[in-house]
Structure formats: C-alpha cells, structure tokens
C-alpha cells in the first residue's frame, strides 16, 4: 500500500502565497460592510424615532386591534362592499385595457428592430421611464385634481402608469421577435405595414396577451389601494372603516380583497395557459 505523501505546509505557503495570505482589503471588506450596514441601521432606528416603549405600546395596541377584528363581520354594508369590489375589478380591467391599447403603437416606436434610429427611439423610451418612475398613487392624486373624486380617476391613473410599464415590456417583446418571418414577408413583396401585420404581430401577440393578463392580475391588487387617496373602489371603504375604527368590517374587507385577488390569479393563469400554452408560463 502506498502512503500518501503529505506536503510540507511551509513549502506550500512559500510556493502559493496568494492562497494563504489574502490581501488586507479582501479580508477587511466583509467586516467593514457588515459594520456599515449595522451602523446605518442603528442610525435609522434613532433618526426615525424608534423607542422600545413606543414599540411595545404599539404592539399591545396592535394585539388589541387584532382581537377586535375577530370575527370578521360586514354588518349591514355587505351590498355596498360587493359593489365596491366590482368597482375595483372594473378599474383594473379598464385601466389595463386602455394602457395596452395606447402602449402598443408607442412600443413599436421604441423597438430597435422597427425604428433603428436612436434619435427617434430614445425620447419614447425616456417617456416610458419617467412615467414608470412616478407611483400609481401619485398619478391617482393628479387625476383626482382633473376629473374629480371617484373610480374614473382610478381608471386613468392605472392607465397612465401602466402605459409606461407595458410600453417597455411590449417593446422588449417586439425586439425579441424572430427576424426571419419579417424577411419572408418582405421577400414576397410586402410593404412595411404588411411586415408588421403578418411577420411581427403573430409572434408578439401571444406574449403581449400574456403580459396584459398578468397586469390585470397585479392591477387588481393596486386598484384595491388606489381608493385610499379617494379614487374609488374598495380601498375607499377600507380607509374609511380604519379611520372610524370599525375593526370587524376592516378584517372582513381585507378578507374580501384576499379572496378576490386569489380568484383573479386563478382565472388569469387559466387564461394565460389557454393563450400561450403551458411551457411559456413562468
């Protein structure tokens, strides 16, 4: 039996110094980062008025609120809540549809394979970026100033903020499309519009439909909160009930939101399967 030759550590150390001696910057980096992270955290706690007494008092209050929430009970306002839920769903569907209809032509202008020139493309992209940078609730406040309180402001807020998001996603889908079909249409004598209609759209429409459905789903969530600033839907009821401390109604409303979101998730994932097939759903 051959014995394993154990190398002398001193020789190894001499031969491969970089393995045994990491530079000071590397060995200091981790502790320094951790220290900095914790330092900022502690500074934040102090600066944001965290105090143990306040925290414990708040927790006690929160526990009391949770007890008050049980059991969930809508009282006599169930019809009003159902109507508000319908309003929320309407806001989500309508807002997303308007956004998609507006975003489709604009996204063609932002796609590299349709508009090769950066000069024309980049203003459209910057427009999308700026619109996305402003939160949906802020758009809702702006639209309330324009069309007044109510669900219509919510529809417009979702339409505008999703216009930015969908425009970006659509243009990426178009850029990812295969060039060959388009060339085939051109080779058989089609015009630019023919190329888009028969070469491009059949490729990107399923992707776009999937994205629109996903956005309807996520907008159901955002439409529930858009009412908090006064733009209609169930958020309005929720904010009101929290302000008047009707905790049983609050928990009922939260429960309703959870169920509605789950239902919409289920429906839209079913539809997405039907449209783009099982494999493409991530």
């Amino acid at each position, binding site marked *: 039996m051959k014995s394993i030759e154990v190398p002398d550590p001193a020789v190894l150390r001499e031969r491969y110094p970089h393995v045994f001696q990491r530079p000071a910057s590397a060995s200091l980096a981790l502790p320094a980062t951790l220290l900095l992270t914790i330092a900022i955290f502690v500074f934040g706690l102090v600066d*944001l008025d965290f105090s143990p007494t306040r*925290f414990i008092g708040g927790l006690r209050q929160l526990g009391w609120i949770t007890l008050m929430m049980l059991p969930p009970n809508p009282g006599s306002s169930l019809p009003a809540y159902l109507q508000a839920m319908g309003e929320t769903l309407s806001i989500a569907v309508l807002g997303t*549809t308007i956004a998609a209809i507006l975003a489709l032509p604009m996204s063609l202008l932002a796609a590299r394979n349709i508009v090769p020139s950066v000069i024309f493309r980049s203003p459209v992209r910057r427009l999308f970026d700026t619109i996305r940078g*402003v939160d949906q*609730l802020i758009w809702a406040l702006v639209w309330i100033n324009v069309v007044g309180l109510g669900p219509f402001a919510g529809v417009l807020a979702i339409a505008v903020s999703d216009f930015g998001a969908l425009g970006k996603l659509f243009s990426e889908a178009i850029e990812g499309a295969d060039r060959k079909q388009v060339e085939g249409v051109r080779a058989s004598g089609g015009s630019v519009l023919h190329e888009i209609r028969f070469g491009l759209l059949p490729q990107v429409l399923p992707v776009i439909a999937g994205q629109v459905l996903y956005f309807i789903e996520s907008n159901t969530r955002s439409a529930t909160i858009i009412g908090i600033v006064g733009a209609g839907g169930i958020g309005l009821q929720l904010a009101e009930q929290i302000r008047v401390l009707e905790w049983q109604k609050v928990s009922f409303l939260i429960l309703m939101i959870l169920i509605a979101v*789950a239902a919409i998730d289920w429906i839209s994932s079913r539809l997405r399967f039907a449209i783009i097939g099982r494999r493409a759903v991530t």
Partner: protein
Amino acid sequence: MSSAISILPGPQLNALNEVYRKAVMRRRMRVLIGAALFMVVLLVACVGAEVNLKTLFAHVGNFVSYFDRVLTLDSGMRVWTDIPEWFWGLRKWLRMLGETLLISYVGTLLGTVFGFCLNFLAAENTSPTPWLRFAVRRLLEFARTVPGIVFALIFVMAFGLGPMAGVLAIALHTTGALGKLFSEVVENADMRPVEGIRSTGASWLSSMRFAVLPQVIAGYASYTLLRFEINVREASVMGFVGAGGIGQELLVAIRKFYYSDVSAILVMIVVTVFLIDIGTGWLRGRLFGEEART
C-alpha cells in the same frame, strides 16, 4: 435547374380548399367570440367604474393645463428659469427624502432578516415538519398579498403617526415577498454538498452554514437589492397615510394646489428612484459579475 410547382386537378384541389376555408373560418369565429366576450366585459366594467367620457373630454384640457400650471412659478415664469425659486424648500425636501430612504433601508433590512429566518422553514427541502411549512407559507402569503399601504394604515392607528408605522409596514410586506423568493432559491440549491458535509459528522446548523448558504447567498443578495428598489418607491407614498417620508409633503402640495412644489418634489422623487436603480444595478454588477446586471 428549375422546378415546377405541381397543381392538383380541380376536384381534388376544391376539396382541399374547402377544408382550408373551414379551418380558417373556425379560427376566425373563435377569435370573434373571444373579442365579443371581451367587449362585454369592458362594457360592464365601464358601467362599474362610472366611466363618463363627457367628463373626460370636458376635463382633458385640464389635465394638459395641469402640467402647464405645475411647471409655472407664482410669478408666471417657467420653473427652469429660476431654479432657486423652484426648489425653495430644497433643504426640507432633502431631509424628507433622506427619511424616505432610511424608511426603506431599515424596512428592507428588517424584512430581510425575518424572511431569512423564516425561509428555511418554508422551503421544501430544509423544512423540519410539513405542518410548520404549511403554516409559515400561509403566513408569508398573507404578508405579501395585503398591500403595504394597508398595513401602514393599520400601524398608524397602533403605533401613532410617523415613520415607525411606515418602517414596520414595509418590513412586514418585505418579509412576505422575500421569504417566498428566498425559499425558492433554497429549493433550487444542490443537496449534494449537504450530504458531503453531513458525512463528515457536522450538525444541521453547520451543514446549513457551509453547504446551503454559499449556494444561496448570491441569490439572496440580488433579491434583497431588487426589493430595496421597490421599497424606495413604496416609501415615497407612505406619507399619504401619515407614515412618514416625502409623501406627506407631496400630498399637501397636490391637495393645496402649490403647483410648482408638486413638480419640484416629483422631480426629486424620480431622480432619486433613478439613482437608486443605477446604484443597485452597479452593486449587483460588482457583486455577481456583468451578466447579472439586469
């Protein structure tokens, strides 16, 4: 060399054409029915959301002129002609913006720590018992489905007005979101290193530390940075319900029609969000190499 396209005799061709036409018709019918259904849904939605095109057309000029007013100073000049006047409250707004960033930082960190602690219990391959996994998963689901601002509304009632409610709301929502993402990362981890470490006689804790953690830490860091970006946006509107940050100032400016303030604060928020996006993108690139930048 040329090749001829063979054309089938008439009757045979007609039959094929007929089948083709029928197939196309069927598809068109299906698309039409789908479109009609969609239109019905839209119409119902229009009624439900009280859409009033007359209001829109009457006020759409208002929307355009709103931006005109937002970009005009009290003196009637355009805002960019007098930057100091436009950003008259720069010091106060910067402080509020700093508070917003701190809220999202502390909230993200708290949420990450809680999500980190819970994710091993929620992941399929590391969870001790099925019922615990089920309970933790439902808890995380609840925390991420209820919008952060709803938590903020409730916390404002419990903890009082101020940034503390915002931090806790963001922390709770982040726990839900990151706990799920983290547990998915753990589920994708390779279990062979765990066996290797186990075979040397290591405990559960050290096999987690030396076998699982090195595999998942990069994914964790990446998701945390992404979450921080999202939380900065969220923290900027927390002030709408009284939970601290710059949202409070913005709400006041919009409600009280301080037009040029609205645009100044919006510009500051957009620039901050933009800088944070670039910063975290750069950090991700530094940490995980070029390909992970997007």
